[in-house]
């Protein structure tokens, strides 16, 4: 383990990150909300911490190994989560638990909140909250497209350019740094487009930028307690649907579309197609269910709400126009299942991911076909390319760990005092990076106990780090060398 090299990197990282307090500081000055001093303090604390980590290790240039990668990536989210919580502690006087919960929820693009009364919060702190999610989204894209494939996590090898079975992935660029730059340009462009669309559709500039940050990051933080429902505008909801779905698409595919200036890559990529089909079928099914269950009297209104909720839940954004937990019959559970399905690999969305679900479904289908033709040779294929057994096995392992972790977390939350529905809802909301849950946590996590908040923080990190990256740190063999 290259401890000192890792420490040095985090030193640099913190100093860079301290710059992110500057926009909030500017907003504080612009809106005269009296919060500028706390952002200045946060900046200074972060720079000081960065220097403290960096200066003693200034000459530690050793290369990180793949093993270091797991630790680095996990610490990245934890440390930035802690630093991001500074303004909440200093400005809103939240407790450590609440502040870190809010911050980690931001960085992991979950969107679960403990803060009630958003509409009365100082603009600079609101902005800081939205920006955390945007930065978290930026981090995850690079993590998912460039770093996790190198670590070979849960079938992500599929996306490793040189081993790519799903190829059409022309290797984006040969170096991670360059890949990251290109991905960020795309991310930035999407955000800009989203903000403009919101603005034109009637949001204030402040809200438009803030919501664009959390829409493209599929985070779900809002500047209003009523979330997107505050605007009660079908136009804004449609814009949100488009950009939430876009945030849930593999950014490597966005890159292909960008480079070739065509929409074709979206149509040819099997995962994006699966994602699109899931969205359409679920929307229609839910709209019909809502209509027949009598939740809405108008058919088009059922469609409007179901499309928004499906897009929001599938991409693990968690914006609300209504509280889906209150919908009748089977509908909340369907949304929970969609939340487990999640968006595409290599996107900002959470959940198990469409690609993995598709591979697992194909694996199951293959077992059935094998029974019908005992002597046949069947392969699991994706987009007509065979997927190696090793990858399928890795996806299978991912799935098992994901489900087992979810169950154990549910048990732990029940032990900490939640009822079954709320406990399960809290796990769904956190491990899938969704935000709103069921029962007591249907809208926010303000009322639950600190133990549950810490369990939720763990759940969010597990979900964000694709299970393996975090859980491997609990393996004794990882630390032995």
């Amino acid at each position, binding site marked *: 383990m290259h401890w000192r090299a890792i420490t040095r990197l985090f030193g640099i990282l913190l100093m860079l990150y301290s710059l992110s307090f500057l926009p909030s500081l500017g907003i504080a000055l612009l809106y005269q909300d009296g919060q500028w001093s706390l952002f200045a303090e946060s900046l200074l604390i972060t720079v000081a911490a960065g220097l403290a980590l960096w200066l003693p290790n200034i000459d530690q240039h050793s290369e990180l190994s793949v093993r270091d990668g797991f630790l680095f990536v996990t610490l990245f989210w934890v440390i930035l989560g802690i630093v991001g919580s500074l303004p909440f502690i200093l400005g809103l006087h939240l407790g450590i638990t609440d502040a870190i919960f809010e911050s980690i929820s931001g960085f992991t693009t979950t969107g679960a909140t403990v803060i009630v009364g958003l509409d009365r919060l100082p603009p600079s702190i609101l902005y800081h909250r939205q920006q955390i999610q945007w930065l978290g989204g930026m981090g995850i894209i690079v993590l998912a497209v460039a770093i996790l494939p190198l670590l070979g996590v849960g079938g992500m090898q599929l996306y490793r350019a040189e081993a790519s079975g799903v190829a059409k992935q022309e290797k984006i660029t040969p170096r991670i740094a360059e890949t990251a730059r290109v991905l960020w340009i795309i991310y930035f462009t999407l955000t800009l487009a989203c903000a403009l669309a919101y603005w034109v559709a009637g949001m204030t500039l402040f809200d438009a930028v803030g919501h664009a940050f959390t829409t493209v990051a599929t985070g779900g933080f809002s500047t209003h307690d009523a979330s997107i429902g505050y605007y009660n505008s079908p136009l804004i909801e449609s814009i949100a649907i488009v950009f939430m779905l876009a945030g849930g698409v593999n950014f490597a595919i966005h890159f292909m579309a960008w480079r070739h200036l065509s929409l074709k890559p979206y149509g040819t990529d099997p995962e994006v197609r699966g994602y699109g089909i899931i969205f359409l079928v679920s929307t229609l099914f839910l709209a019909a269910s809502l209509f027949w269950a009598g939740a809405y009297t108008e058919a088009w209104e059922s469609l409007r709400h179901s499309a928004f909720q499906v897009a929001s839940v599938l991409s693990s954004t968690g914006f609300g126009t209504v509280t889906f937990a209150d919908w009748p019959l089977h509908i909340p559970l369907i949304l929970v299942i969609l939340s487990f399905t999640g968006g595409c690999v290599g996107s900002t969305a959470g959940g198990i991911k469409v690609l993995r679900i598709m591979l697992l479904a194909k694996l199951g289908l293959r077992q059935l*076909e094998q029974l019908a*033709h005992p*002597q046949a*040779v*069947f*392969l699991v*294929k994706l987009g*007509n390319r*065979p997927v190696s057994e090793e990858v399928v096995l890795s996806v299978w392992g991912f799935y098992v760990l994901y489900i087992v972790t979810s169950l154990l977390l549910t048990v732990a939350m029940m032990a900490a005092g939640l009822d079954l529905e709320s406990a399960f809802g809290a796990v769904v909301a956190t491990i899938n990076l969704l935000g709103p849950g069921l029962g007591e946590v249907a809208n926010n996590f303000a009322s639950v106990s600190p133990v549950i908040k810490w369990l939720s923080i763990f759940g969010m990190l597990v979900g964000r780090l694709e299970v393996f990256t975090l859980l491997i740190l609990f393996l004794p063999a990882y630390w032995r060398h």
Partner: protein
Amino acid sequence: MKIIILGAGQVGSTVAQTLASEANDITVVDQNPHLLTVLQEHTDIRTITGQASYPDVLQQAGIEDADMILAVTNSDEINMIACQIAHSLFHTPLRLARVRARNYLAYPKLFTPDAVPVNFIISPEQLVVTFIQHLIESPGVLQILDFADGKAQLVAVQAHRGGALIGQELRALHGLIPAVETRVVAVFRRDRAIIPEGDTVIEAGDEIFFLAAKRDIPAVVEAFRRSDKPNRRIIIAGGGNIGMRLAETIERNYHVKIIEIDPARCRILAESLHRTVVLHGDAADQDLLIQEDIEDTDLYCAVSNDDEANILSAMLAKRLGARKVVSIINRSSYVELAQGTAVDIALSPALVTIGALLAHIRRGDVVAVHSLRRGAAEAIEVIAHGDRDTSQVVGRRIDELPLPEGTMIGVIARGEKLVFPHRETVIESQDHVVLFLADKRRIVDVERLFQVSITFV
């Protein structure tokens, strides 16, 4: 014509035999002296032992004054390099090569005089696949051949009890299917050709060749035999090049299963085939065939490269209830033995290939040649050129043409139209004339007929 054939394999030796009987000077080059000795014993040709792509070996084979080089060795690379050498060093005018790998065929720009100077590429596998594909698309027929870019097709069908025309004169055909234009060009009864006239009475068991537009074929076939139901379930035995390509071609429209004995090959098949069920096992394994519903199979295609295995597995499949069985048989003696008895359709890759080659060897502007009845008969498509003065056919009525005996003009493709000629039809310049020759030896007369006199430039 002086022709050098490189490679004395199935295709090479069959072509050598066919061409040698037509007064060509043939030299065959191969590395295996044993193959050459056997070939030379049967055929009047010259043989050279050596590596086919070496210039000195080619020189020995007399390439300096050869009209054509036909490279059909086992190796695509040797075939291509031989053509290159023939072009660069010896300026051989016509160079044909067999190229199998699709990795090359996918780049047509490769085969230009500046790059790999092959005039025509021959791919026996592709021809066989097309042949079987035609059989699958039109149940009940024995053979379908394309003319005029597929606008017209020559179809062989065996008359069966239950066909409306059985026991009737041929002229009744028009009354049966008045909306359809067709021309019966030959009837074979007990292996003897009968020149079809209006009063020829069709008997059950006759093999009938007719020409028609593609869309009309089912209607005509129905006149001669009860229509078979369309093929749906296909089993392919043997996952070699032919089996794999066949499966790839038809898997979108049919239920296809492919049986292959080599597990590694099975994996490759499973990777490149997407709807086909790849079965690992022996095609001669009765249990496997029963397990995979052989009795509900419409067409069983034995396409491995082992004649005996193909015939036996096809016979087994037939006995277990497959509706129709097709087998690839390379050895010509087996073809005659098996066709119509052990297997429904015996198919010789070499014979199929020869048709494609003959088109380039024939004099005159021959577009397509197909060998029929195991080489005894031939159908050719020729373009008529010139005018009444320079050509013996253009501007003349059909009954004025001195056509050799047993030769019949089946159809004329004029632009996009098909003209089924009668006695007064006048042939125009640029007509694609499709002729059927019941006796292949008359081919020289036909060639001469269509050649333009020297004065025409």
